[in-house]
Every structure is written in C-alpha cells, then in structure tokens.
C-alpha cells in the first residue's frame, strides 16, 4: 500500500533559504498533527483504567472499575449483543451483494456499469442528516421504525459500498483468463467462477466482510432515525448516554472498541494483501 519513498542517494542540502524554512515548518506541522491525532486516543485509554467514578485526569486511582461496570451492566451488554445481531447478518448480506456487483463490473458486458458505481457511492456522499430524515419518513410510512428486518436491509445497503470496492479491486488483480482456461477444459461458467475465481478472491472477500462488519457495528447516525426506541445498538446506547452526561464507563468501551476494531482492521488488511 505504501510505495517506496523517494530516497535520495545522499542527504539533500537545500541551498534556498525558503526551502529550509518550509521544510522546518512542514516538520513542525506534521509533528503537531500526528500528536494531535493520537493524543485523544491515548488519553481515553489511560483514563479507562481509572479506579474512581470521578472524571479527573490523570486518574487518582487505578483499577478496572470502568471495565467491571461495563461488563456487569446488563443494559450495555444487551446493546452490544443487539449490535452484533444487526451487523453480522448485514455484513454477510453486504459481502454477497458487493461481490455480485464486483463480478458484474469486472466480468460481464453489462452496458450501464456506471450505475453500479453511482449506486455504491451515493450513500457515502449524501449528507447523513438528510438521508436520515428521508429514511425516517419512509420507515414511518411503512410502520417499519425499529423493525429488525428493514433496518438490517438498510445496513446491507450501507455496507455494500465498502465490500464492492474491496472485491472489485481483488477481481481487478485476477486475470480473467483463469476462468476462461477452466472453461476451455470443460468446466461450466458457474463451476469455473465458483471453484477458481471465488477461491482466489476469498481472502479479499473475508477482509471485505470484516471491514463491513466494523463499519456497520460502529454506525451511529442513521440508527437514531430508524431505530426507534427499542432498537438499542451499542452506538445508540453511547449516544443516549452522551446526551445525559459524561459517563466514565465509556472510556472502557472506547478502549475495547479501539483495540477490537484495530485488530479486525489489521486482519482485514492482511487478508486483502493475500490476493495472488
């Protein structure tokens, strides 16, 4: 993913003063930005190990109080379970739909392929609030607010752009001739696709599945509009709790989510690189 950087044969001495100044300035800016990006995360992780309910930082006492409060609360655990119950099937749906779209784009002669690209990009660039209001109105009309099936289908659509992009890239790297060779040897097209192309693209598909799962698990905007009062996913529970104040338990939740998401994303990245 990172291409080789430009490495000069020996250190560049920039004769122009303006260049030296710019380079120094750039270094400072990069350092500040990098620190600024990471500091909130570090603060939260450290704060999650505070042993008291007070919000002082650095914590006066250390301990696993926040984690115990989180795992001990049935309300929070239930919201985690709801999130998993929603995101897992939706990710499965998203990977299926996304793979189909990728196959259509890469391996068929359909004429209006750009429509698929547009369909996949559109949910990402539409202002979330506007989308939410429209969804709310639609769901109310069909009495579907808070209904698991419809929310699940919505999540499939939300996850499809990500799976489509990943599987599309994977199929781009797989030469089409592999399928055709199999067919010259007598396999039917479905068999060739199923046994060859999909096997080779499997690591990428798994990576896409993990990516979609992470994204859908964390989805916090639209669920407020279509979830109703009963559909309590973890992000919605965090949202409600944040409206009421600053709950220190959320530092523990944040740390767990950060590490869990990080692990899943790294795994997904490694899988995606394994396309032969």
């Amino acid at each position: 993913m990172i291409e080789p950087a430009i490495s000069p044969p020996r250190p560049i001495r920039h004769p122009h003063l303006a260049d030296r100044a710019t380079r120094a300035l750039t270094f400072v800016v990069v350092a500040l930005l990098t620190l600024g990006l990471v500091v909130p995360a570090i603060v939260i992780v450290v704060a999650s190990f505070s042993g008291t309910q007070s919000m002082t930082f650095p914590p006066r006492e250390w301990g696993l109080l926040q984690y115990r409060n989180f795992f001990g609360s049935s309300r929070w655990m239930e919201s985690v379970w709801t999130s998993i119950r929603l995101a897992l099937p939706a990710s499965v749906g998203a990977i299926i739909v996304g793979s189909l779209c990728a196959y259509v784009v890469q391996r068929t002669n359909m004429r209006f392929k750009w429509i698929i690209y547009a369909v996949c990009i559109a949910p990402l660039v539409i202002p979330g609030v506007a989308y939410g209001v429209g969804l709310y109105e639609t769901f109310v009309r069909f009495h579907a607010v808070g209904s698991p099936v419809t929310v699940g289908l919505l999540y499939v659509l939300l996850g499809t752009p990500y799976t489509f992009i990943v599987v599309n890239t994977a199929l781009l790297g797989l030469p089409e001739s592999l399928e055709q060779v199999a067919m010259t040897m007598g396999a039917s097209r479905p068999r060739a696709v199923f046994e060859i192309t999909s096997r080779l693209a499997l690591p990428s598909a798994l990576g896409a599945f993990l990516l979609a799962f992470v994204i859908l698990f964390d989805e916090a905007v639209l669920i407020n509009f279509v979830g109703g009062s009963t559909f309590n996913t973890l992000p919605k529970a965090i949202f409600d709790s944040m409206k009421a104040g600053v709950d220190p338990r959320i530092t523990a939740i944040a740390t767990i989510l950060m590490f869990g998401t990080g692990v899943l994303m790294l795994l997904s990245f490694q899988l995606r690189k394994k396309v032969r």
Partner: protein
Amino acid sequence: MLVLRKWRGRPGGVLGLLLALPVLGLFLVFFLLPFINLARVGARGDGFVANLNSYFHSGVTLRIFWVTLRDCVLVTVLSIGGGAVLAWRMKTSSRRFEAPLILAAVFIPLWMGGLLKIYSFIFLFQRTGPINGALMALGVFSEPKHLLYSESTIVLGMTFQMLPLAVAPLYAVFSSFSPELITAAEGLGASRIKTFRTVVAPLTSIGIVASSLLVYLISLGFFLTPVFLGGANAPFTSSLISSDLFDYFDPPSAGIGAILLVCAGLVIALIAGTVVLLIRRSQGFGREKSWMVRLDDGAGDDPAPPSARDIDARAEVGGVPQ
C-alpha cells in the same frame, strides 16, 4: 470423455442486470424512496414554498445555515491542508519509520469510530478535563473555563474527524504522478517551492479539488459533532434538523432543512465540476498522462541519425565520435 460446451468470452448484459438486481432493489427502496419522501415531507401541509418561507421566517435559521456552510468550508480547508501535508510527508519521507508512523497516527483515530472521537473531545475539553487542567497549570486560566459548546470546538472536532479521511484520497493523488518529475525539476535548478508551484500543483489540482469536494460533502452531513460539541450555543443546520424532528415534532421543517443541505451539496458539487473543467481547459484538455514527457517541441520526428559519411567528416574536423 470431452464435454463440449458453448460459451462466450464474457457473460452478457442480461446476466449482469440479474446479478445487479439485489443492489438495485436495495437502492430503490432504501435510497431513492427516502429522497422522494424527503421532498414530500418538505411539501407537507401548505406546500413547499410556504414551508420554505416559514422556515426562514426568523432570521435565525438563515444565520444557522450560513454558519453551517461557512464552518464546513473551514473544516474542508483545514482538513485538506493538514491532510495534504501529512500525505505528502508519507509519500516522500526518506526515513524508514516516518511513513508508517504517520499512517498509524492517521488510522488510530479511525478505529475509535465517530461517536467515540466526539466523546474523547468532550472528555478532553470538559471543565474538569485535561486541557483545562493543563492550561491552568501553565497559568493561562485561573479557573476552569467552558471550552465546550462553541463554534470553534465544533470546527476543531470536525477537523479531527475529517483529517484521517482526507489523507487517503490525497495520498492517492500524490501517487498519481511520477516522483522523478520532481527530481528532474530540482535537477534543473528549481527550488522546492518553485517545483511545487510549477510541477506538483498543476498535476494534483484536479485531484485536490475532488478530495475537497468529498470532504465538504461528508462534513455537511455531520450531525453528531455539532449536536454534542455545540449544544444549544452553536447550532448547525444538522442539529436543528434532528431537534426539529425529534424534539419539536415538526417533520416539514426538518425536511426543509435537509433539502437545503442536499441542495447546498449539489451546488458545491456543480461549482467543483466547473472548476475542474476550467483547470482542464487551461491545461489543454490533453489525454496525456502525467508521466509522459514531450521529447520535442512538437515540430516533427527526431532527425535522422548521422550517416557514416557524416561521422567520418566529423572525425576529420575533430569532433566527438558518435
């Protein structure tokens, strides 16, 4: 035993359409239909124009809309600026650990998810939080101040969220041209700044416009950040929309606000498209790739290689043998 099957090179359009039916169906029900309903809810009651008028009846909503647009532009400028610096450094740093370090710094906030990033901001900036503590220790304030719930905090929070998202497309933009062009320019004597001005800027301008458009559209839709970091002190149109819908039970106003945001997005997209068109026109609309270098000034083919007689003639005169 050979089984002979009839097959074509690629499946035709019909199969493609069939396979694409799931996504098209989902799109129809969960995307197009909501937007149709959005238009309908905006027109509910007295009709669209009347609702629009009553929405802007007090100058407040207009001012909020203006503030939203202006702050989104600010966030875009900051995110693209910072993201460009980071992406450039990632692409061109000569130390081995620097690029992965920046990459990690960019990714770790992403792993927190949008809502938790906002939470971390609230945690940092609250009255008993670390920032107030640090500033008091440095003697800037004598008592903790209310740093949250202001417009600047919203802008800072949104930039914090958009910066990682801006780095990826910018990195792709900076990877789209050959780095040897820069080496060539500097070898010809240009300073780094001049190289940027004359080589990098024209090549990346379109990509930067596209990335900016993406960042702007996404930030228009942010409603969690303005709600939590702005509160009632610094409302955005997006927080207004959500409170219209859920607190005041006024769907038409929410619809009008949402339609306004979408239109603002469309207008900016059109402007961006025009800008891109103008840039391409000034660069000659060429289909040349950035890595192509013109070997001549377009006058004609390379001159014929010197013949044997010319070489002998030159050798007699004492020129350099070819």
